[in-house]
């Protein structure tokens, strides 16, 4: 591929983000935005201490966010390690909630191509609907862009019917120019989604980083007519933040992207903050956090 020569002005990006954040989202826009955000969540557990029990409980939560509030959607997916895909798949049977699995030696990505492909195959064979891979940041920063490209392309092939989300781990890429370059590589190599972070590195998702990635998606769409999805992950924990991301999404890519087919939040605590706000809409007061399940 021809390497992108798109330059990014960080100050300009930050100013644009500040403009999104002055949008005042009230009343029905706010309510609908929060419901949409819930429906876009990839409810995630990615810990060394994950067990079948933990995964099952989280899956139930994904389907039953708060049964006392009528008309709530489910989350879009749950996101687990490959060895928990089977458990999750079974727990979610009969629902529309997808199972996403991280793979490719998540989170560092420091392993051989062979092992990474094997990792993906295990996830897919176990029934993962979506695969969240990490790029080789070391190779990227060393300038081996072809390596990064080829690896993504190989993994895309191994995914088969599963949708591929490519994690750039933007917290390790240092500049927005790099974020743009990595986005272009991932998109052209076959990513269905591009994703900011593993959640293991700080900073994780930020609005400026997400905006640069959304603009890469827009440029690709303008050129080819093909839609790519976006998933900011890590660090989005409040409904206010989620609404700000949705404003940015709407004003950058438009309403076509305003569904969980094309936009996801990778988050573990966002859902509960939204439920707190929705509870306030229903009951008129903020209720105690103890009323919200912590699965």
């Amino acid at each position: 591929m021809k390497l992108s020569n798109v330059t990014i002005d960080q100050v300009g990006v930050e100013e644009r983000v500040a403009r999104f954040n002055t949008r005042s989202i009230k009343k029905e826009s706010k309510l609908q935005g929060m419901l949409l955000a819930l429906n876009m969540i990839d409810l995630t557990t990615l810990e060394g201490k994950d067990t079948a029990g933990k995964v099952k409980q989280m899956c139930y939560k994904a389907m039953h966010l708060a049964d006392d509030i009528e008309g709530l959607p489910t989350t879009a997916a749950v996101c687990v390690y490959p060895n928990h895909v089977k458990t999750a798949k079974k727990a979610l049977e009969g629902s529309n909630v997808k199972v996403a699995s991280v793979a490719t030696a998540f989170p560092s990505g420091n392993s051989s191509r062979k092992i990474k492909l094997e990792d993906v195959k295990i996830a897919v064979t176990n029934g993962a609907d979506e695969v969240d891979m990490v790029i080789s940041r070391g190779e990227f920063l060393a300038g081996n862009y072809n390596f990064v490209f080829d690896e993504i392309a190989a993994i895309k092939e191994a995914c088969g019917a599963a949708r591929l989300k490519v994690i750039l781990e933007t917290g390790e890429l240092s500049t927005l120019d790099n974020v743009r370059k990595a986005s272009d590589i991932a998109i052209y190599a076959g990513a269905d989604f591009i994703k900011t972070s593993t959640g293991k590195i700080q900073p994780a998702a930020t609005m400026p980083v997400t905006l640069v990635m959304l603009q890469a998606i827009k440029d690709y769409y303008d050129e080819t007519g093909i839609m790519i999805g976006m998933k900011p992950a890590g660090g989005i924990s409040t409904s206010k933040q989620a609404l700000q991301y949705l404003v940015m999404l709407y004003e950058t890519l438009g309403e076509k992207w305003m569904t969980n087919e094309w936009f996801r939040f990778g988050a573990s605590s966002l859902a509960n903050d939204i439920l707190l706000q929705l509870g306030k809409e229903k009951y008129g007061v903020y209720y105690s956090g103890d009323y919200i399940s912590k699965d």
Partner: protein
Amino acid sequence: MATTKKNNIKKSTTSVSSVKSVFQNYAPAPESIDHIQLKSQYDLFINGKFVKPLSNEYYDTINPATGKKIASVAKGNEKDIDAAVKAANKAFESWSKTEPKERAKYIYRIARMIQERAREFAVIETMNGGKSIRESRDIDVPLAANHFFYYAGWADKLEYAFPNRNPKPIGVTGQIIPWNFPLLMAAWKLAPALATGNTIVLKPAESTPLTALKLAEIIQESGLPDGVVNIVTGFGDCGSALVNHPQVNKIAFTGSTPVGKYIQKAIAGTNKKATLELGGKAANIIFDDAPIDQAVEGIVNGIFFNQGHVCCAGSRLFIQENIAEKVIKKLKDRMRTLIVGDPMDKNTDIGAINSKEQLEKINHYIKLGQKEGAEIFQPECSVPANGFFCKPTLFIGTSQSHRIVQEEIFGPVLTIQTFRTIEEVIEKANNIPYGLSAGVWTDKGSKIFNLTSKLRAGVIWANTYNKFDPTSPFGGYKESGFGREGGVHGLLPYVKF
């Protein structure tokens, strides 16, 4: 590179309907207007008191977003100007001898009082002028307070600004301000004049007097000695009387080039000093190595800020020809997300045109552009039925010979030209009687420095546009006027040695 990809993903999960429609139109988010205090009738502010105009005549000031009357405002005339100048002249005797650090205290106090009443100022500015509440809240009012803070700091340090030159105040300054930034322009002019020990007669624009009159209330409360600041509202005859008054020692004017020329003629042969900040038709230049998405944002901010009622607006866009198609597409997409409407709504990007006359002028140019054969683009946004509104407008395929490129429109209308080389764009950018501002977008620092030394413009922004700061001087070349406002340079027009 060939990648095959299909978007045949199955519909997933529970869909949330009706979200789209809600996000297309954010729910109304109007700024509350309950907290503002407006009188039904405003008098002139002369010698520390609000006094009736000698003619006892008043005129209506309206809200351009609705066309409805807000208040009656005194119609000052030559005699009122005379009374105000005499009051200022009398006050000069003691004010000019007041300890500089005491002068500073008053200016700091005014700055703090503006901050305390920032919301009220923002709402009134938006009601009276039509600009969006987002701009008056985030830009006009904070910047106005900052100007007072900045110049308060200079009051007792003038000998450091002009070492070994013993700066002294000039006397009575006549200040005539425009309708596009009513409060901010008053601050730009009042703050340095007060800091240097001058007294002032200020005439606000006839269509937007209310924030200046609110400022008069603050000045009165601040305890500033009577007569140091006088504010006389009225029409052109009032401004003319101020310019021609023999006891006025300096004129500071911001407004149109024809009026600027009139002032120059009127003060010829007198020893009156003047600073004129006049029209503009700035080039905003985008090179192919620019950060394009951010440049598009800068183009939008450059021309649609304050409905294009900005003398330094980036109204002539020059795009390097090899990226023209891409930039224009992105610009159109961005314009489709602009919200035109009720200025008091916090989500409004483009508010109301300031007056019926200005809207007619803009519409005249939009018709002219079409007659000249330029391709017009306006987004399909909704526009309120009442009040004065204009859609953001592009003219594509224009050249230096188009009148819409040559003349200042002072509205949300952008002309687009392409260029091939750096020499060509410099020549075209300078090929205009104005020279107030310009913008350059490129990733290359050397290109920026090359252009800044060759463009004949008082202010040049690189990879940004319409950035203002009290510490930075502002002013023009050629028919955009002379003299600088802001920064240490902004003190110079108010002192003699």
